[in-house]
């Protein structure tokens, strides 16, 4: 039977388990009657449907759908000094490929993305600890770990710039206590990317932890009981029960993390400080600058909007490609029940 998603599917029963038995034939009859009545309403209903969708639909069309197409179009044009565009084909993309600033920012962004992914194992350890049987104070820990997630990234950046300060920052003060001479973390080209990524991890651990904790709590206790009856120890249980059953959540977390990291802006923009007309004040600016920052700079400060459009189009393709790649690779490690 073809599942009618509107009525049958909505009741919460997954389609494969609707058996063809005498019991369901009664409800099928009811449904047929219902559907006949529905058809009576149908014609009037459809106007209600359009009316309810219109406000959101028009807004999205004007402010989102059409702009995507426009941005795509802009990326093939040149922006006149007084506005107006001229079609120049793939010229922007050609410039972009040989623009070292673009490559640098792409590299920085990917570096950040990979390092932030390293926060997922950390989040996983925390989630496993919080999920231990008989654990007390989980609510308290959860609240604390979640604080950086809700805090404004711009404000977080201001705070971390202070912690990272090379002369009087608390991090270097602490390092000095154990005899280490700390760097000028966010203005030294060799450290800036690590410093920024550490903040990225700090900001996302709580979020990933919550997602993973939800995944862990979804694993039926029976499986662990069964495994321990079979003599599997704690470690073995983790690898043969927890990890496979958590892999869909891990996958989801990874995909989200990559998508968000590739678009990082607020945090790094604020940590690096402004790029003024006479150039950036931060000597490590170009080693920290992300793709979205470059887009922002080109589009709204350097008045090269079409070039900026080409940059975000490349970012879009990159995000799609990396997401598609992850979906392809998931067959190797993600275990769906």
């Amino acid at each position, binding site marked *: 039977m073809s599942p009618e998603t509107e009525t049958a599917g909505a009741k919460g029963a997954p389609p494969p388990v609707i058996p063809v038995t005498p019991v369901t034939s009664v409800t099928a009859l009811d449904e047929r009657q219902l559907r006949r009545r529905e058809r009576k309403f149908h014609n009037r209903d459809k106007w209600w449907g359009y009316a309810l969708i219109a406000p959101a639909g028009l807004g999205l069309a004007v402010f989102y759908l059409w702009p995507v197409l426009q941005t795509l179009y*802009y990326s093939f044009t040149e922006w006149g000094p007084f506005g107006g565009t001229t079609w120049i084909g793939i010229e922007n993309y050609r410039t972009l490929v040989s623009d070292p600033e673009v490559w640098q920012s792409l590299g920085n962004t990917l570096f950040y993305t990979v390092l932030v992914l390293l926060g997922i194992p950390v989040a996983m*350890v925390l989630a496993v600890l919080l999920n231990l049987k008989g654990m007390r104070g989980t609510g308290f820990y959860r609240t604390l770990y979640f604080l950086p997630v809700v805090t404004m990234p711009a404000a977080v950046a201001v705070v971390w710039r202070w912690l990272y300060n090379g002369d009087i920052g608390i991090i270097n003060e602490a390092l000095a206590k154990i005899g280490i001479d700390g760097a000028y973390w966010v203005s030294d080209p060799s450290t800036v990317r690590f410093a920024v990524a550490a903040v990225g991890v700090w900001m996302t651990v709580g979020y990933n932890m919550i997602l993973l904790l939800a995944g862990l709590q979804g694993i039926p206790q029976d499986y662990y009981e069964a495994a321990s009856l079979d003599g599997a120890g704690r470690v073995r249980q983790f690898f043969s029960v927890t990890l496979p059953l958590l892999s869909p959540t891990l996958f989801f977390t990874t995909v989200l993390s990559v998508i968000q990291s590739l678009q990082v802006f607020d945090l790094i923009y604020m940590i690096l400080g402004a790029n003024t007309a006479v150039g950036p004040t931060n000597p490590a600016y170009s080693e920290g600058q992300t793709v979205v920052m470059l887009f922002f700079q080109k589009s709204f400060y350097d008045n090269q909007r079409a070039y900026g459009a080409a940059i975000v189009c490349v970012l879009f393709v990159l995000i799609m490609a990396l997401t598609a790649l992850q979906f392809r690779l998931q067959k190797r490690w993600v275990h769906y029940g």
Partner: protein
Amino acid sequence: MAETTTAQPTRPAGGHPAPGGPASERPAAEPPAAKRRVRRASRQGRLWPAHVLLSLGAVVTVFPLLWQVLTSFKSFGESTRVPPTIWPEHWQWSNFSTVFDSIPFGDQFVNTVLMTLIRTVAQLLLCSMAAYAFARIRFPGRGAIFLGFLAVLMVPSQLFLLPQYQIMQDLGWLNSLQALSVPGMFSAFGTFLLRQFFLGLPGELEEAARLDGANPFTVYWRIALPLARPGLLALGILTFLWSWNDLMWPLVVNTDPAQMPLSAGLASLQGSHMTDYPVLMAGSLLATLPVIVVFVAMQRHFIQGIAFSGMKG
């Protein structure tokens, strides 16, 4: 190996909980109370390494925010002292008034609140209307329109930015509350989220109301919307958070300090007080405090809502 023999029988097909089937949990044998107490005590004893690790992580997590609060009360001189003081010698409240003198903080606070409020209320209303229609009403072209919504959902937000700015400029809306709020009133994500929520609700009540002659809008407003409260709460929290913290869009459209929200104001504060950290800490504290208060007050909803939907971005 042996796993198959023990794990299989209790495991319903496809990993789904057996719908309507016999309860899969077996009642656990109750151990005698004394034994249970002993076990609980020993369990707590074994948990201390976990507590140590979790506390360590919590300290690392909270320390930056704590240091922010402490610094915001120090004098500039004290903040630069080389073995640093932990507690402020004199609690210097004037850092906060310096923030008010440096940026139009009051205006920016009001801008942020209004922007957040407008975006959130509008999204809850518009998204739920569209979501309800997608979930419950049949009309020609529904699938195609929904695909359009999904397409928007997949595109990173920077791709909208240039043309949106163009529209604001053409409308003469730059440096206004409309510019801050209007594009954020619409959300493909919110529509998608609430549609999923409506699809998960039982439809009997709605059908009954329809048969009693209520029109689809009445059914949506009177029956479906109240039932969808958890979904609305999740979307509301996400929109609140995202609007309050949003930086790039305000930086683009509202360059007049009096029209900025706090996030952009913080950027300009940092520009003018590059090294006056106590003032910067005071400013950033003021900008984040409202969100933190709301978060602590409704943390359960926050965490559930965010875990439920995956943050937008």
